[in-house]
């Protein structure tokens, strides 16, 4: 253990790692601060730049962008009522009213402190629980992995949008696209239509960039010219110790809510922020001020959404199952660097895991420093007009996508995926289950067919082990619960319409 830690420290403590992590946090804050750019898009656009970096450096760069992006989303939410990321939507409720009162600086500082605290708590949870879960997962064979991935897919597809069918349809698209290439067992062609570039399957980065960046760009051209929102000013007031102490309970509660919800695949930052906010409102003596510029509301929302950051990495590192779409991208980065997250990673590359943990801890400190020093600069970034932003993003997409594969074919795939992504956007089919299913698809099929090879074609193998029973039952339960939730939602809407009439 000590020897591994020592090797991991040597692996981590290089100038490149420390510098790229810093750059990642900085880039993440900038991306998050730009309205219209999400942390997912930031991580997706950074991914090609990590291709030629060592694995630890590349992954730390992405983690930095992720963490910076989630915090950065709160900046335009507070200043111009436009959340930079979906997770920051809750911060608008009290952040913007406080900014209107001329206390934007106070709101931004509270968002920063609570984000850093929650992020730190989340990182601790990650370090403590990941190893434990991974050691349990070492007992898993192909049938158990199949059941686990199936469960993850149902929950992710179910919570990705307000319509279960659309989420599952998106997941089916992703699974189908993942089957293109040579067959895993027989090596025969599957849907490649004589195109040799497709023999290894459809590449991850063109799909990722095409799906998450291009549809937004196309959609931007269909929008009317926006009058650019300007913010009044930051003000000079910071957060006092008394105010921090008053909000501390909500920050701690929000951090734990974030950790718990982040560790469950598919939940994500936004529901966690809203739950943390509603709990703070329910228990606060200043409940009446919530929604009118209450500092505790900002603290609770930001703690809730940043508490998720480290925890979403728990299922990723321990089981190889991404907790949300950003961790799905990070999973792709692991794979690009020849690493497979999950129990095997702990068994074979424990020093890399420890080095990543060290970097993750440092990222919380960087977030505090970068956020504190750069608040006024990031506030200016939310002024970047979209008319320049989207063409710049397009060029970044093209360079990044080409750089990874060095082939024009990848660019064609990216543009086609952009077109498909745009249709999905118009038909309200969520892109996140598509991407997650695309990444998990080969693992799911592989474990499915390996299991059947072991049992010589008998499906009993999926019911022989209690672990399989647990995950398959959970998968069925999650589908039933999501169906029930959708039916209830429809009934509530019908009732509301009747009352309105």
């Amino acid at each position: 253990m000590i020897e591994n830690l020592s090797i991991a420290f040597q692996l981590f403590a290089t100038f490149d790692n420390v510098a790229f992590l810093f750059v990642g946090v900085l880039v993440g804050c900038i991306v998050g601060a730009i309205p219209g750019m999400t942390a997912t898009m930031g991580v997706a656009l950074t991914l090609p730049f990590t291709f030629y970096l060592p694995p630890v450096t590349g992954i730390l760069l992405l983690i930095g962008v992720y963490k910076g992006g989630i915090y950065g989303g709160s900046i335009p939410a507070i200043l111009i009522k436009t959340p930079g990321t979906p997770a920051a939507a809750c911060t608008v409720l009290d952040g913007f009213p406080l900014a209107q009162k001329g206390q934007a600086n106070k709101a931004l500082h509270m968002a920063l402190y609570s984000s850093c605290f929650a992020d730190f708590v989340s990182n601790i949870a990650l370090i403590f629980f990941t190893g434990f879960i991974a050691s349990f997962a070492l007992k898993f064979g192909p049938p158990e992995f199949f059941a686990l991935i199936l469960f993850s897919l149902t929950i992710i597809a179910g919570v990705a949008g307000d319509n279960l069918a659309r989420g599952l349809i998106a997941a089916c698209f992703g699974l189908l696209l993942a089957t293109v290439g040579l067959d895993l067992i027989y090596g025969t062609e599957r849907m490649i239509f004589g195109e040799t570039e497709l023999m290894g399957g459809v590449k991850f980065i063109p799909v990722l960039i095409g799906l998450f960046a291009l549809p937004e760009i196309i959609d931007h051209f269909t929008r009317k010219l926006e009058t650019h929102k300007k913010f009044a000013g930051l003000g000079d007031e910071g957060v006092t110790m008394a105010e921090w102490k008053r909000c501390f309970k909500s920050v701690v509660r929000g951090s734990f809510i974030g950790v718990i919800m982040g560790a469950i695949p598919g939940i994500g930052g936004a529901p966690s922020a809203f739950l943390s906010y509603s709990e703070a409102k329910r228990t606060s003596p200043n409940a009446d001020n919530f929604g009118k510029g209450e500092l505790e509301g900002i603290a609770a929302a930001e703690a809730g959404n940043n508490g998720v950051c480290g925890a979403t990495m728990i299922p990723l590192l321990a089981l190889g199952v991404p907790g949300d779409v950003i961790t799905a991208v990070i999973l792709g980065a692991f794979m690009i660097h020849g690493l497979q997250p999950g129990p095997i990673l702990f068994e074979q590359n424990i020093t890399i895991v420890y080095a990543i943990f060290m970097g993750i801890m440092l990222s919380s400190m960087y977030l505090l420093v970068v956020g504190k020093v750069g608040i006024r600069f990031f506030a200016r970034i939310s002024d970047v007009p979209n008319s320049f932003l989207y063409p710049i993003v397009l060029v970044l997409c093209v360079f990044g996508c080409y750089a990874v594969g060095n082939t024009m074919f990848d660019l064609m795939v990216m543009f086609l995926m952009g077109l498909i992504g745009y249709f999905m956007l118009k038909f309200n089919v969520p892109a996140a289950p598509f991407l997650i299913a695309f990444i998990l698809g080969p693992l799911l099929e592989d474990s499915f067919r390996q299991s059947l090879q072991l049992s010589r074609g008998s499906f009993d193998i999926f019911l022989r082990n209690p672990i399989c029973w647990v995950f398959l039952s959970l998968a069925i339960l999650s589908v039933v619960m999501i169906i029930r939730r959708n039916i209830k939602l429809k009934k509530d809407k019908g009732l509301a319409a009747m009352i309105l009439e």
Partner: protein
Amino acid sequence: MFFARFSDAILGAILCIGSLVMILVIIPISVQVPKSNKVLALSPDFWIKIIVWISLVFGAYLLYSGLKSAKEQLSEEKIADIKHQKTLHHSPSRSVTMAVIAVINFFVYYLLIDWLGMVLASVIAVIVFVLMCGERRYKIMLPVAMILPVGLYYFFLKVASIPMPLGIFY
């Protein structure tokens, strides 16, 4: 309003047709199944067929529920959402035209990369797309259009050692 009312049904119909085309045409043509395979579940097309059949079921469900709900009146919430979207977007016909122009420009950009190389094609693309966004501040536009592609070109060439296509300038 038509699209909002029938979007479920349209999506369902597309899925049903697509799934049937997959089952009847694409899978038999493009998935090679070795004759030596004795176990159905291990066949290379088994997994694909499962996914496509699930898609067909969801497509049929969406088509049915979409046609059923299209007869009902749109909820207040949905009407408010449509009105909000209308304030953000151009008229439907103009939106479609703009989206088509954007997609055509993407593919022209792709062809230009092959012909003029990554840098010059990107310079032209930035200018065209910025103009399409309605921006007319040339003093910002031109430096951005020049510096960004050249900077990225040198980053990938010098830092990552990845040569970018130079087209006719090679």
